[in-house]
């Protein structure tokens, strides 16, 4: 039986870059715990030697010529940015403290 602790939820939230609220942390501890317990039934199946499916329909590797083509104009790429900065770049808060 999988049990999920509050500290697990906090650790996962940090990995996922989510600032969960107190009530979300509590709710997810319970709900994700229930869901993970339900997943335990997967362990009943013997999968020794069974290959993993990573691509649902088998296909050969797809290759193409490495030819330059025009890409999206810079102003269009920046048009949806929350802070385009005005100098043709994405502006973000300070990275190094």
């Amino acid at each position, binding site marked *: 039986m999988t049990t999920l602790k509050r500290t697990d939820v906090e650790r996962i939230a940090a990995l996922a*870059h989510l600032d969960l609220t107190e009530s979300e942390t509590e709710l997810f501890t319970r709900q994700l715990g229930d869901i993970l317990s339900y997943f335990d*039934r*997967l362990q009943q199946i013997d999968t020794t030697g069974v290959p*993993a499916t990573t691509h649902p329909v088998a296909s050969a590797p797809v290759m193409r010529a490495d030819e330059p083509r025009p890409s999206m104009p810079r102003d269009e790429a920046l048009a949806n940015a929350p802070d385009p900065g005005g100098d043709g770049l994405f502006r973000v808060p300070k990275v190094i403290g």
Partner: protein
Amino acid sequence: MTASSIQTIADIRAAMTEGLTAVEICAQYLERIAAHDGPLHAFTHVAKEHALERAASIDRRGSQDPDLPLAGVPVAVKDNICTRGLPTTASSRILEGFVAPYNATVIDRLTRAGAVVIGKTNCDEFAMGSTTEHSVSGPTRNPWDLERVPGGSSGGSAAAVAARLSPIAVGSDTGGSVRQPAAFCGIVGLKPTYGRVSRYGLLAFASSLDQISPLALTVSDAATLLQAIAGQDPCDATSAAEAVPAFDAALREPVPHPTIGVPWKILEDGVDPNVRTAFSAAINVFREQGAQIVDVPLPHATYAVPTYYVVAPAEASSNLARYDGVRFAYRAPLDAADADLTSMYNRTRESGFGAEVKRRIMLGTYALSAGYYDAYYLKAQQIRTLIRRDYNTAFERVDAVAMPTTPTPAFGLGERSDDPLQLYLGDVFTVSANLTGLPAISLPCGYVASGLPVGLQLTGRAFDEETLLRLGAGYERDAPWWRDTPPAAASTG
């Protein structure tokens, strides 16, 4: 044929042959949306000017142009598919205000075929859900009963088609997100084989499961729509090189002496008795048409839901990492004093994503995290292989596998919002087609006692959508449920 009586692509063709213009048809659908979408909320954006301009350009070219198989046909587009110059938000706060800078390949192909994008439709945020309640703009309602969900995640697309607000629509199906709302709304939903349709320009949820999929009133319209969007695309390396057959022509040929497999054992528990009755009646229609019905065991089918809910959130947690407040639309307000990059990421994602998306990101991050990968993700990918083998075995004997699309008809708004696991269990019959990549169609097959529609699902061999369409067209001829219009639909009488 008057504009107000139009329902299908065939109706539109007939009307245009009689002299109706694409602009008149477009205006008719825009009027229907204005008059009927208020209580339904199928659309999140009605592209009125864009659509009328497009329709006018079709009229200039002439509707009889053989290169325009969808001349003047309005199409509603799920809001997680990029449409150049139109909002594309996946019903998420984190993409509020995002205007797509390019078209998804399916939109380019639809446009080339003469279709007119009439608007963007509501969905569960990032296509995660089966009710269309998890949308930043509020829920879509079921045209058969406004107190019930339309299904999801493509609930807006399904409701729009069922209510005759658009003749056809495109959605995306990752675990049943087109077939389940099609079943709940009494229309046709077809998930093609993985790779049949390009995913370029679809906001990715789970890349090994996602497939853009047609919704329509009739099997024939679903086939015409699939024809327009199918085929390999250099922009999507997972799109398949397989030749695209002439689906329309195939429809005219019934499947000779088909064998249909039914996994009776997995239908014993947890299926609403009314759903089972409608399903059994549909199977009898096939039997009367000469089909042989055989029992097929799908021994791993009961593991499909937990397998899916490991794989899909794992892929989602990776795909949704890109929404970080830097490039796309929304960034959380920050105090200048303590603002650094990490707090910007964390606050943007916390306030930009809704509860279900966060739940799945958490679940997927956990399943992929150090120490758990083998127990969850790898194990699920192995069971995925076993589920596919079950179907391969079945297809040695049968042409298609039939089951109800959903174990229950549409449930009440808010009824399952507190218990995500219960909601996930409702996907029991749809997720296998995504895990295996196989094509599957949901057809309307009658009603439960309260008058809500029931869906019949047929799953076929890889790249054999033709058999599903032919079986579906044959069933529909003897059971034309699509002619019934729901109470909240626009009048076409």
